[in-house]
């Protein structure tokens, strides 16, 4: 149960800043995800919180105490490393026992806890194996188990599920979330998987190039992205040209090929401005075209397991991407009608 | 095309002197080239044994009598053809002890040296090592592996027992000597650094150390002197036998002996050499005084050295 607060945290490698003056406050027991493209500084941030990278500038506080000079082992953290960092000379069991030994957990209790966690990560029977005798995914699970078994105050997870299949991943998520809630561990979770970040986190931090682009709840991030980059990063997005007709109190009325809408606006617009309407592909529903509705032509359709992807062409030439369940299938060249509720649109500034 | 003689020589200053002075002299006298091969009795012995009696790598070898005597037994050397060694007759009797199988070309008498600054009562005899409490724990000796070490044993046997064969007495005395510092070859370091203050030293060495500024002196003990000897031997199957004889004769010549004396403060073995006054201090033993040098039964030593080495190791502290 520790509150973590970060202030203007910066890490430079030579002239380049891997992490650039980021600030955030993570509440006790909160589950926060770091989301961002490869190389944006997620691992670096995590390592600074853990105490493995020197802080170039800024402060890190646990419960108000500056910990920049506290050695890693005194911070009571559990960490899953992106490259696992399993101890090659210890068996799976010894790897898990290590943290417990440091905490002087009595032997019988230790054995019990290890057995429980191993069971959860589905590696029962692998106790005596050395890391190099395990598959990639198995190693990753050992790394996860090793960090979880100590039930630390702060949990730092660096893409801990990247090498697992969907089923296992799902089960691991539940397991992590359960433990985290039960013990009340403040958790920072690094993932490249938007869906994972969305389903697991209390809040999501989106980073780009060492800076924080947005912090907010998953719904915030997904449905009210503060800028186009965030919107694009956390999901696919369609941009449709629109024209501002009139401006009201924090809202604007726009006309577009998809219809006319009154939308809240955070950017300053004037009547007559050309803007972009943003819309997620899965917000679009398709049906056979009937007259009087916004319509489009199917350019291409892809099947991807659970979903159908359509590339559509509006009559004004703009292209759209729609994603639906493969209940009704449309073929290339079909005319389809588009439906999308007004609240799924948002304005993203002047279209170039 | 000139012939080449391989001349085994000791290293260091010896080699330098041979290279700079003796070899050119010999070349001048004989017209033959000289290749110097640095080593010592052990190496030459090993090399000759490895090569076998029939094919020795050398034609002439000058080494301690202790090595020479066993090699002689193994048949490597021949009895000197004295007609080819005209200088042999001028040698002191001491140098002719080998019955014509070799000739001692150099003698470095060994006396008892001590640090003049660290010793209050200078020694007079070997016995003083036991009796003067000043020396307790500060005595240096040659180890048994050195030929001088073997002589020490025979000397002490002679002093404390019936004769040099009474090694029981010798060892008993060694045991009573208490702690001594042994060295396999180099006693100079120890005495220079003051690790011990008294030890057997050859006169030449003492002279050198004194010249280098060390407060050291050496006495001729009442019981007599030991010596490092260098016997010159001719290989029975020498590849260059004629040259070898020429070289042997050259070494024994008074001129050469004088050169060696000046350089190394050895006692010349050729009776025709006169020690000049300015060298008297550094070469105190010459002429009739050569009689003070005791001689030893190397056959006895060689035959029993295995047992003696073991007893020595167990006895000397």
């Amino acid at each position, binding site marked *: 149960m520790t509150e973590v607060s970060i202030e203007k945290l910066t890490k430079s490698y030579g002239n380049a800043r891997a992490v650039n003056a980021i600030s955030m406050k993570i509440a006790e027991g909160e589950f926060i995800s770091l989301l961002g493209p490869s190389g944006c500084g997620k691992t670096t941030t995590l390592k600074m919180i853990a105490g493995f990278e020197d802080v170039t500038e800024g402060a890190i506080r646990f419960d108000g105490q500056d910990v920049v000079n506290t*050695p890693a082992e005194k911070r009571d953290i559990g960490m899953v490393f992106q490259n696992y960092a399993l101890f090659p000379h210890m068996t799976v069991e010894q790897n898990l026992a290590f943290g417990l030994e440091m905490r002087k957990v009595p032997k019988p209790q230790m054995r019990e806890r290890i057995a429980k966690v191993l069971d959860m990560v589905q590696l029962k029977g692998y106790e005596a194996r050395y890391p190099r005798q395990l598959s990639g995914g198995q190693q990753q699970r050992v790394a996860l188990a090793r960090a979880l078994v100590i039930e630390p105050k702060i949990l730092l997870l660096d893409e801990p599920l990247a090498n697992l299949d969907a089923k296992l991943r799902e089960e691991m998520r539940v397991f992590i979330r359960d433990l985290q809630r039960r013990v009340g561990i403040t958790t920072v979770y690094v993932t490249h998987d938007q869906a994972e970040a969305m389903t697991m986190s209390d809040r999501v931090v989106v980073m780009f190039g060492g800076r924080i682009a947005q912090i907010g709840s998953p719904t915030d991030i997904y449905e009210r992205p503060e800028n186009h980059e965030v919107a694009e990063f956390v999901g696919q997005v369609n941009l449709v040209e629109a024209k501002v007709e009139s401006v009201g109190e924090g809202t604007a009325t726009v006309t577009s090929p998809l219809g006319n809408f009154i939308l809240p606006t955070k950017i300053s617009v004037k009547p007559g401005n050309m803007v972009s309407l943003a819309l997620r592909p899965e917000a679009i529903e398709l049906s056979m075209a009937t007259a009087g509705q916004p319509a489009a032509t199917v350019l291409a359709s892809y099947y991807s397991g659970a979903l159908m992807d359509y590339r559509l062409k509006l009559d004004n030439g703009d292209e759209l991407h729609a994603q639906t369940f493969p209940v009704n299938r449309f073929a290339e060249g079909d005319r389809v009608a588009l439906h999308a509720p007004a609240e799924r649109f948002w304005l993203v500034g002047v279209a170039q | 095309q000139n012939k080449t003689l391989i001349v085994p020589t000791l290293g260091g200053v010896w080699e330098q002197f041979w290279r700079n002075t003796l070899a050119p002299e010999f070349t001048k006298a004989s017209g033959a080239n000289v290749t110097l091969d640095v080593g010592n009795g*052990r190496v030459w012995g090993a090399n000759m044994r490895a090569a076998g009696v029939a094919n020795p790598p050398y034609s002439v070898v000058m080494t301690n009598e202790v090595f020479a005597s066993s090699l002689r037994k193994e048949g490597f050397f021949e009895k000197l053809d004295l007609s080819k060694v005209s200088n042999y007759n001028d040698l002191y009797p001491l140098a002719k002890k080998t019955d014509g199988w070799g000739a001692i070309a150099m003698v470095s008498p060994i006396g008892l040296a001590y640090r003049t600054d660290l010793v209050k009562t200078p020694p007079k005899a070997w016995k003083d090592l036991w009796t003067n409490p000043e020396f307790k724990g500060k005595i240096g000796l040659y180890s048994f*592996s050195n030929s001088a070490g073997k002589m020490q044993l025979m000397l002490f046997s002679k002093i404390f027992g019936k004769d040099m064969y009474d090694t029981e007495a010798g060892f008993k005395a060694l045991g009573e000597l208490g702690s001594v510092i042994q060295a396999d070859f*180099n006693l100079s370091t120890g005495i220079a650094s003051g690790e011990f203050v008294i030890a057997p030293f050859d006169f030449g060495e003492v002279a050198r150390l004194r010249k280098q500024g060390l407060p050291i002196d050496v006495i001729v003990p009442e019981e007599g002197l030991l010596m490092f000897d260098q016997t010159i031997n001719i290989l029975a199957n020498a590849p260059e036998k004629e040259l070898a004889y020429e070289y042997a004769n050259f070494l024994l010549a008074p001129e050469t002996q004088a050169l060696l004396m000046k350089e190394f403060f050895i006692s010349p073995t050729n009776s025709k050499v006169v020690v000049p006054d300015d060298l008297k201090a550094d070469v105190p033993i010459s002429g009739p005084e050569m009689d003070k040098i005791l001689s030893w039964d190397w056959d006895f030593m*060689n035959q029993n050295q295995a047992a003696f080495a073991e007893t020595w190791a167990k006895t000397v502290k």
Partner: protein
Amino acid sequence: MSPGKTKGIGPYLLIAPAGLLLAIFLVLPYLNIGVMSFRVPGQGTPYGEGFTLVNYARFFADSFYIWQVVNTLWIGFLTTAICLVIGFPVAWQLTRPNMRFRGLAYGLVLSPLLVGIVIRSYGWTILLGNNGLINRTLTNMGLIDAPLPLMYNALGIIIALVHVFLPFMILPIMNGIQGIDPSLEAAARSLGASRATAFRRIVLPLSMPGIQAGCILVFVLSLSAYVTPSLIGGLKVKTMAVTVVDALIDTFQWPFGSALALMLSVTGAIIVVIFGRMTRMKWKVA
């Protein structure tokens, strides 16, 4: 490692040059020595007629020699242990990424090897001798009355051996440490291990290949060292190597010397094998 490679004669070509060299220039010459050790000791000759076990009997019958073996092994063991303890931190520091003056430090580590044995022993005599710098300083300061026995005993031998063998411990350990991923240490600390514990539980065991190599080298070298024990020990401490050398080249007891030498070597080899087995890296063996 990768398969397909272990097949065929390919790998054996790797060991062939060393194997041939050792077979021709070590094993063959030593056959002679092996035979020699069963020869009848000679009088004034290298050996006499016929064969015998007397050389070995003489070794086993005399506690003087047995004790020498014990003594030699003990000195070897202590030297190795001390080298390990004082060498490891140096090796560790030399592999730190931000180490400055690495070249210089590396050179310093090697420096004891650069001074010939005689000169080096002279240096030690100046320092450790009864009349040496240390003893003189302490005496002058009035701290001691009689000189401390720093030389001419096992202590002096061990000091000098540690000094000259330290590089043989440090370099292999450095090689071992360089193979350790620093994130493993980080992982240990994230689990609550202090620097010291992480060092002991992670870095130390993972440097085992280097430690093993260093220990074997130092131990073997200590067993066969004879110049240092004879110069620094003033021949007061009997070690096997010194006795072997005496027997072989000073007193011409070739049969007995050969037997002693072989006993010493076999003992050393057995200890090396046992040590290798004890420190086998289980996690590397399939």
